[in-house]
């Protein structure tokens, strides 16, 4: 499930700002380059990121069938419209690109995300909303499963997404409304709350930024 996993790893103890920079810059590099070398490098980086975060591949992608479906589309597109190699590159890059933000969510506490987003000058209310949306992803994932099960029990097996989408959307809206009401009831004001997390750059964070800088240079001069 897409929720924070409490563990003691390099990935977990890294500064959230560095993780955000890594995810954004790396995705930019990945999607701007379509070479087999970049595909290989992306997969290696994703693999190392999993190892450094003590998170298994099955925890990142708990639904292999769904992942296969997602990866199949860019693969088939590349395979039929460009070349088989291009299809493989597309899928490999997409796999790596999906891994990084998922790892970020799995290894970063909500208050750390809020603090990092506020550091990047996002208004406190926006930062709080963004972090809260991430926090509720597993809730909606679970709700989606419940809706799917409820409709399947009524014999639904078709391709029409409406019987799944409408109850899920209603649930999301209801949840949002009740959450905002409960926050209001407790006099919550994101603009007034102090920085919720102590942001501190450690040696390994500077090293991670250095490696990222190297990747950017490699992208400019090599790939």
């Amino acid at each position: 499930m897409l929720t924070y996993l409490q563990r003691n790893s390099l990935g977990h103890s890294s500064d959230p700002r560095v993780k955000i920079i890594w995810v954004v810059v790396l995705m930019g590099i990945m999607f701007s380059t379509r070479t087999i070398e970049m595909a290989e490098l992306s997969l290696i980086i994703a693999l190392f990121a999993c190892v450094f975060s003590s998170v298994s591949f099955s925890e990142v992608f708990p639904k292999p069938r769904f992942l296969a479906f997602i990866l199949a589309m860019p693969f088939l597109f590349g395979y039929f419209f460009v070349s088989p190699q291009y299809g493989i590159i597309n899928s490999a890059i997409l796999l790596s690109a999906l891994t990084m933000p998922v790892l970020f969510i799995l290894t970063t506490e909500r208050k750390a995300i809020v603090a990092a987003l506020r550091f990047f000058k996002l208004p406190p209310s926006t930062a709080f909303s963004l972090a809260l949306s991430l926090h509720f992803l597993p809730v909606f994932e679970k709700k989606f499963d419940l809706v799917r099960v409820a409709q399947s029990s009524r014999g639904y097996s078709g391709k029409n997404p409406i019987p799944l989408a409408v109850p899920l959307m209603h649930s999301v809206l209801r949840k949002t409304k009740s959450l905002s009401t409960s926050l209001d009831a407790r006099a919550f004001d994101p603009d007034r709350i102090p920085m919720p997390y102590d942001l501190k750059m450690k040696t390994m964070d500077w090293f991670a930024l250095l490696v990222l800088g190297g990747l950017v240079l490699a992208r400019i001069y090599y790939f």
Partner: protein
Amino acid sequence: MLAVQIDKLSFSYSDKPILSGISVKIKQGEFVGLVGKTGCGKSTLLLTLNGIIPQMVNGNFSGTVLTLGKDATKTPVHELARSVAFVFQDPEDQIFSLRVEDEVLFGLSNIGIAGDEAKRRALEALRTVGLGEHLDSDPHTLSYGQKQKLAFACALAVEPEIFVLDEPVSNLDHFSSDEVYSILGKLNKSGKTIIIAEHDTEWLAEYASRILFLNNGKIEADGGPQILFDNKFEAAGVKVPCAVKISKEIGESLLTPSQLITRLKQKVKLKKR
């Protein structure tokens, strides 16, 4: 024929065991109440009856589940939906249509029933649950209790052999709960099999012909409603009917308030004499 035959059923989510080696047979026409505290595996067990587990929910599954002689682990869920109707705890998980009638017709169209026959069934089911006046209403504007009744009507319209209900009255007021249970009682008398999960046994004491007590993923008690007098139910966090509690205090073995009142009246009369 047996309605349900479960043999050595075990299920776990990754390393968390939910059901451990459950074996049970349910005859057609039985009214079975599945009781146990929250998280004991009641809903998981129910989901195996129409094949949702293991076909749609990932986990470690072993054992066999036969529903009306069909292997529920292999028969497609949409095929089992013809003979097994499910009513979930939260009706809002299934409601998506813009008209109450359309919501009921959706389930019927899934099993290949359309046209006048579908309309007849939908109207009959909606009238049965007291929503006959709301055919054109938007289901999302109904009260929560009415939505639960609508979900129940969707199941009724399918006219299945087995009704599986997961805490269907947990969000209903006393009057509406009474209505739902009296409909279930009538269905049971007409030969339908009812399997219902509840943590509140008040209604089951009155309507169920058999109680299965699930604790830590195992069936720890199986028998008539009289087994609710066993102290282990309360000890395990199951809400025992008030009538049973009072009966215990006065040394009787009565299950329902009406039985209890009759007995108390008799006692008062005897004392007066």
